[in-house]
């Protein structure tokens, strides 16, 4: 139960990424880190040039051990970019991957508010605070393991679908190729020669 009582002392580490000049060109990451260090539960807050780089990940991993961190907040880019990266980093240091939370201060802050540096700074602080607030309630979770049916389906029998099906089948995977027309081939089969080599399409 994710909201069940959890009495351990919170030790949150906060990392504010520069992303080169992508973030640091608009806001001062060190100022956000200094500000975040006063948030409840935060025992370590620092800025880092590239959180996703080996050096940035090593810093987080070393800090988890050094400061005995039990939550990590990374204020950097979109979760769509690097959530997996940082989950991997914290779990390499022995922390459950779901005890890491990201704040998106690049795509959704410095990149969108490049002309409003003061506003961007306030927002970066707030987004970091929200990630820290969520981190306080995070609980360790385990991935769900599911079995895999070792068969593939390709929908559409044009040149892309045929290529995919052949390669899957050559890997030894049983593949069902589905086509709505009476023949496979798609647009390609209607073509004469194809550029730039002028070979036949079929």
């Amino acid at each position, binding site marked *: 139960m994710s*909201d069940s009582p959890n009495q351990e002392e919170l030790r949150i580490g906060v990392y504010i990424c520069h992303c080169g000049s992508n973030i640091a060109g608009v806001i001062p990451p060190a100022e956000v880190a200094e500000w975040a260090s006063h948030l409840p539960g935060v025992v370590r807050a620092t800025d880092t040039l590239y959180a996703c780089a080996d050096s940035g990940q090593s810093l987080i991993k070393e800090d988890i051990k050094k400061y005995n961190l039990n939550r990590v907040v990374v204020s950097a880019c979109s979760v769509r970019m690097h959530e997996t990266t940082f989950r991997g980093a914290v779990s390499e240091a022995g922390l459950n991957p779901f005890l890491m939370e990201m704040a998106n201060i690049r795509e959704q802050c410095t990149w*969108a508010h490049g002309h409003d540096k003061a506003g961007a700074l306030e927002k970066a602080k707030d987004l970091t605070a929200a990630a820290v607030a969520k981190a306080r309630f995070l609980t360790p979770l385990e991935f769900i393991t599911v079995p*895999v049916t070792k068969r593939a389906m390709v929908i559409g029998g044009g040149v*892309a*679908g045929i290529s995919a099906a052949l*390669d899957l089948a050559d890997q030894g995977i049983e593949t069902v190729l589905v086509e709505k027309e009476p023949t496979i*081939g798609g647009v390609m089969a209607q073509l004469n020669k194809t550029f730039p080599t002028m070979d036949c399409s079929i």
Partner: protein
Amino acid sequence: MVDAARHPKITVKTYTNVERVEGYVGNFKVQLREKARYVRADRCNGCGECAKACPVEVPNYFEMNLAPRKAAYVPMSQSVPLLYTIDMDACIHCYKCVDACGALDAIDFSQEDKIEWEDVGSVVVATGFNHFDPSVIPEYGYSQYPNVITAMEMERLNNSAGPTTGNLIRPSDGLNPKRVAIINCVGSRDKRFNPWCSNFCCMYAIKNAILLKQANPDIDLSIYYIDIRTPSKGYEEFYDRAREMGIHFIQGRPSLISEDPLTRNLYIHSEDQALGKVIEKEYDMVMLNQAAVPQPDVDTVSSILNISQSPGGWFMEYHPKLRPVDSPTDGIFLAGACQGQKDIPASVSSGLACASRAGRILHSDEWQIEPIIAQVWEDRCVSAEGKQCGVCAKACPYGAITVEKGTAALITTAKCHGCGGCVAECPHNAITQMHYTDAQILAQIRALLAEKPEEKIFAFRCQWCSYGGADLAGTSHFDYSSNERGIRVMCSARMDSDFIYEAFRLGAGAVMYSGCHPQDCHYITGQRVGAVRADRLLKTLEKLGMSDGRFRIEWISAAEGDKYSRVINEMQQTINDIGMQQILAENAAMRPELEKRSRRMYEVPMVPEASTYSDKMVIAMSVKEVKDGK
């Protein structure tokens, strides 16, 4: 084509539609409808006697309707499988085909559509593209002037396997044209129709020009273009070759094609940018190089597979650079032109990339999925007390919840996709979602609205679409108001009324409730659950006296960064127009009712720590209220 049909590991199912896709990565169930062919696949040997005997002729779409086919047909002689089909819309039931088939006895008029389910671990979507229909461009006269043809018609007329065995003739009189023009960007790069560059048509025009010139060196060939785009390997060299062959390239988009009604010759009126003047030239035949457009059934396919669409209707990839062939659904991949206009090398590359991406999963014995699932607090579920409820089961798009009176609602973990709809719908707060608990989300809302809440635009976004839209707004550097503060949940279905009440109770200036467009929803009907709730919320908030525009419901896809930034800026404008005094007054007036409504939030079993946290927030609020003189 033949390799695919012959491969021992490939089963080719033609004349078959995909009707439903259920399940999740590693464990998809796909429902197929194999349409009745009225020909038995196990007996037909492709001899074609049925077609010879068939007296009905209809236009053959494979030949762009330039040649007829019979009601008993194969689309082309190289069809794979070489298996005849009887077109029941055209068939007159004379049964001559049955006689012609004779002892083979392959014709079977009693055949019906066959429904079957396939279990697969991964799905590659390669549903392709369609050609733009140029008859909607009045100035080019297609379908009105017989000698104005499309690129695909040219393809068949110029093809040795086509209806004229490759002898290019004018449809009006059957003569070989001596002067041919090709017009590029027909329906492409034209704001009236499609804004995009269709990618392959420049090369396609050059290919056709070279082929025609090779077949007849005396032919006069002109290509009208806006820009010639030849960015891939060997393409520019191909263009050079065309110029060396004496093909004319005229920079200008023709404004009109007119016809001499006697000769059926065509006049192209165009600007020639090199000459800097308007020209008019006569041709025997004109080919319109059509835009590539999404398939007409793209909405159906996207709702069966829950794949979002980019503007225009192409399927949306998970990430344009890093995961270009992944769909947002784990285990479903996008190959070829369904994802965006592609030429053959790019289509093949993406198909091969999909095979590699799918192979990652299919070579594993097990796959890990995120544990972001719903869980029931059994002691809170009223069904356990024998009361009638079942609201959660109704909200679930996957049928993952079983409710029986006398026992608490039961969630089948393997079926739960983690949209969070049941969590927000449960009237008794008896369900929680891992990693997106009420306590976690409320903590975020409270942190984001701790300072000057009345100036803030609070945005609830779903993971798949509107959060992606916000990302794209940033990636594209579309500036919007820095007063925006957003959180992410998995689906708009998870956006509990109490979260919105809480945001306004804390004093937010405006709130946006956003998620996927209905057809893009990652959780089949999750967006609809969210949309119904959002509409109800809007009415409630209006009744409570809130000004128009302070609560907005917006469906924004991951491809609509421009929309995300526009909506936020409009909301900023709304706040400015209403004015701070009015917002503060409205919030104060609404607060007692909001507190009554969102009271149940405090019933959420929170960690002691959480209550301390929320207490702190309440204290912070009271301090602020004192400061504001309330």
